[in-house]
């Protein structure tokens, strides 16, 4: 790892200032992706701005029909939260399935969302649940946030402060864990929301997406039977030495059906 200047930001303003004053600054949330990336010298920022001391970015609260999770809330806290478990149990399941227990003690929702790893769980959860990403500048709908491989709508210097999840009537997250990494080979979040059925998919493509053909069928008839004849196209899906695009496409269909069956 190349050396860098370390800044422990006391508030958002200090973080923005440290970032804008740096030649090539990087924000650090839990560091679960950033530190391994620095070790491999895939990145060599001049400055690292640590957000962990900003208390206003931590915590989980219910605000009417919305759950608001601070960007620096770790996965273990989301998984163990009574508020999340009672309002959106599928989200607690998702958070509790990320990495391993030690990683869940450090990794944060804001860091995961900002990093936008194609195989990360949260992007699929945000898209499936119709969440909103709150930043230091604005609010961005999950549908408009994940743009591609590790690419988001965040502008330079924009800092995620929270994620807002509308409480669904029902939701279910189904994941095929990569046996070595724990990342999602495919992860599917199916949610019955007040605006209709949403199906968020992660792991299968360059970024999380909505499986709209499944959504349309389920909106008319929320049953396993309704999606039996529907399949996910393998076009533009990821393919690697372990799993072909066709395999991932097949698993999307299987997981949608399993999720619907579990929600019945």
């Amino acid at each position, binding site marked *: *790892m*190349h*050396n*860098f*200047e*370390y800044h*422990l930001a006391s508030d958002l303003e200090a973080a923005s200032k440290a970032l804008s004053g740096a030649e090539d600054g990087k924000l650090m949330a839990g*560091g*679960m992706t950033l*530190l*391994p990336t*620095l*070790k491999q010298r895939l990145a060599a920022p001049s400055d*690292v701005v*640590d957000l*962990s001391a900003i208390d206003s970015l931590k915590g989980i609260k219910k605000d009417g029909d919305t759950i608001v999770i601070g960007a620096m809330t770790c996965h*273990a806290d989301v998984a*163990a939260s009574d508020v999340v478990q009672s309002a959106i149990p599928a989200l607690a399941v998702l958070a509790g399935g990320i*990495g*391993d*227990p*030690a*990683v869940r*003690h*450090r990794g944060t929702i804001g860091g995961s969302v900002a990093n936008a790893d194609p195989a990360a769980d949260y992007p699929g959860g945000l898209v499936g649940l119709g969440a909103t990403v709150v930043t230091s500048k604005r609010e961005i709908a999950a549908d408009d946030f994940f743009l591609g491989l590790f690419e988001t709508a965040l502008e330079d210097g924009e800092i995620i402060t929270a994620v807002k999840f509308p409480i669904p009537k029902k939701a279910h997250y189904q994941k095929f864990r990569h046996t*070595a990494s*724990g990342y999602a080979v495919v992860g599917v979040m199916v949610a019955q929301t007040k605006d209709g059925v949403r199906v968020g998919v992660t792991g299968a493509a360059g970024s999380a997406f909505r499986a709209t053909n499944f959504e349309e069928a389920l909106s008319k008839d929320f049953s396993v039977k309704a999606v039996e004849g529907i399949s996910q196209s393998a076009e533009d899906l990821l393919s690697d030495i372990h799993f072909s695009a066709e395999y991932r496409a097949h698993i999307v269909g299987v997981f949608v059906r399993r999720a619907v069956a579990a929600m019945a």
Partner: protein
Amino acid sequence: MPQVKLTVNGKDVSAEVEARTLLVELLREHLRLTGTHVGCDTTQCGCCTVHVDGKAVKSCTMLAVQAQGRAVTTIEGLAEPDGTLHPMQAAFREHHGLQCGFCTPGMVMMGIDIARRNPGCDEKTVREQLEGNICRCTGYQGIVQAILSIANPSAVRDHH
């Protein structure tokens, strides 16, 4: 160079480190606490597991400066001053939870964390919770039984 102040095994510690110094490097190379091991150096094997403010973390994936003001516990901090083993250490001995011993410090630290978070849990839970700690010798049986004997004694199968 940044100055970092923290407590390690209950003692106040202050050290001058580079920003890039990892917590495990601070422990092993600056403080000479070599009980915490480095296996993979990529957040996968769990040999470097320590407790930070009572929670298990992988010290190869945390900067020393991130431990500023925090309470770190390593394997060296578990036993009583007179050498009496921590109950989890004693359980690992009782259930043959180790062979070569390389993963053991991380296993014991994670085992304590698992038992703390999952009192009364079953064997399946222990196995799931151990996914971030890799042992290449034991087949995990003894490790799982040792942790289970603390988390939920009634669920232990290999009484001897």
